[in-house]
């Protein structure tokens, strides 16, 4: 996993609540057996005016000029600003894979769906929960100022706006440590292999039918 420390990134405002995983990456792209290459299909049905199929060359597809990701001022954005309940719906990790592949490393929203939120951390994306008022302010500032960037510092747990206003965010110490260092979670867990084995033996003795 890619480590995340600090980022000073252009912000792309996606002004919709309840953005679901079918919108983030439509199901036809879930047929891939790979982990990479989903970026061009991110928000496919909003982004292009034709129907996308896996393997299509997206550079020649007709773009929907009204969709925020297609507007010139947001090209190269690394921070996605979103509304409530972002990432609701399915467990597909293709959603964070597509977001990361498109170049986003931070998502800021008033709330996230649980599974999506969790999946972000596994892919070096930092999801930040900010108050609804805070998010509203960021949307307003972002719309008003072309080239609007935010400075995100994971170590300090702060987000700073171009005018120097700053707010802090929460993250569990374990997630922070893993993200800062880009650690492989499976490797970390296997350090507890003896504990897992001991638990398993006890569990099997108590409920042998679970192991039949």
């Amino acid at each position: 996993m890619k480590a995340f420390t600090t980022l000073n990134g252009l912000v792309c405002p996606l002004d919709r609540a309840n953005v679901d995983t079918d919108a983030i990456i439509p199901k036809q792209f879930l047929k891939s057996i790979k982990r990479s290459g989903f970026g061009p299909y991110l928000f496919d049905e909003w982004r292009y005016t034709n129907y996308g199929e896996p393997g299509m060359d997206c550079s020649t597809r007709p773009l929907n000029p009204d969709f925020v990701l297609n507007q010139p001022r947001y090209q190269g954005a690394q921070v996605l600003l979103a509304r409530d309940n972002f990432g609701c719906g399915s467990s597909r990790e293709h959603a964070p894979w597509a977001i990361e592949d498109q170049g986003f490393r931070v998502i800021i929203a008033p709330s996230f769906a649980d599974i999506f939120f969790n999946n972000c951390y596994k892919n070096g994306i930092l999801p930040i929960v900010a108050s609804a008022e805070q998010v509203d302010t960021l949307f307003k500032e972002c719309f008003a100022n072309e080239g609007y960037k935010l400075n995100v510092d994971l170590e300090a747990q702060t987000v700073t706006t171009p005018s120097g206003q700053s707010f802090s965010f929460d993250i569990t110490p374990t997630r922070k440590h893993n993200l800062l260092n880009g650690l492989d979670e499976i490797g970390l867990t296997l350090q507890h292999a003896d504990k897992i084995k001991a638990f398993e033996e006890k569990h099997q003795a108590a409920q042998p039918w679970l192991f039949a």
Partner: protein
Amino acid sequence: MAGKTLYDKLWESHVVHEEADGTCLIYIDRHLVHEVTSPQAFEGLRMAGRKPWRNSSIVANPDHNTPTKDWDKGIEDPISRLQVETLDNNIKEFGALVYFPFKNKDQGIIHVIGPENGTTLPGMTVVCGDSHTSTHGAFGALAHGIGTSEVEHVLATQTLVAKKSKSMLVRVDGKLGKGVTAKDVALAIIGKIGTAGGTGYAIEFGGEVIRGLSMEGRMTLCNMAIEAGARAGLVAPDEKTAAYLEGRLHAPKGDNWTKAVAYWNTLSSDADATFDTVVVLNGAEIAPQVTWGTSPEQVLPIGSTVPDPAKEADATKRTSIENALKYMGLTANTPIEQIQLDKIFIGSCTNSRIEDLRAAASVAKGKKVASNIKLAMVVPGSGQVKRQAEAEGLDKIFIEAGFEWREPGCSMCLAMNSDRLSPGERCASTSNRNFEGRQGPGGRTHLVSPEMAAAAAIAGHFVDVRSA
């Protein structure tokens, strides 16, 4: 000290290790696997030179990509075929307790085959790279969906890194009226608390209505917990749970059965347990529900009219009503019963079990699908469900009424195979998501119960099944 909730008991009995910040390693008893969210996980395992920790915990089966007709032709889409073959190869290489490959007589939707083979049991932790894993909570199992990285983590370590959720009790008191089903209860709950109402919670469903539901009904309800934002839904096991499981292929036998049932009897929330949030509904007030928008919370009782954005004061909500009406091709204030339909889908892990098919068949019996309906299809949840339905003659009832009777699979729930809506087509569906494009690009989905879907097929538009 306050008593424990069912969720507390399930959680505490699976903690292997706890970090200072409350992050835990949770032992996983059952790992359900399907073809869409597993290839990258197996690939990761292979690349790291790892083996599954306990492959006898794996129950696997392709379902999302498999066709529901012309099985002799195989899977025509080469990309879908590759994904299904990849699962075949991965299971061959890594092993599993149960594997039903494409066309096996017992193949079906993973959330249908788990319980019907007795591989979902009370007291278990169950995971799957699929958000509707919450279904298995109907048995008093702690069950939730995980991402592909977590699928790999569970394969390699038999554990999941997780933090305990908050607890919510949704109590549905009283009795349901005639024609009102578990699906309507689920939609009414989502209508009340919203699609994010359960975010961060494990929901336990309790109350007289829940006790009165069959196991099939409880599965329908827990299936939809994720649509309320909760990763896990729970119903405490009781006699119905044991009666459903007894004699199933992988259910405990003999002495183990007696011991297991004794243990399961301890799996309920203590009388003095406290929940972080309690929501109460009156079952008698729940009417058959129909979603009108593009989120399951955009739902109303039959008999209502489609909302008018002009009457919504909140700007964000107004925009989302406007967006939904535009996408759905609906005009504000249209009575729901006047919405004309193009297609009918009875199936999915929400409503494709034998009881669902019986209920739909009882409405369709001796009637004909309306002439404006281009396609009405019934897709059983598994080979076992299909055989049972055929033994009861339900297939004939459907076929005579003008429905297509298909092979099991996810089908038009998410349209990864060739069953899908064309742009602008409107469907009454017994599935769980009405998101934009869910049943095909530009397709318009209205979520309903099997009875309501069957009644809509006959009428050609929505009707109140209670007076149909």
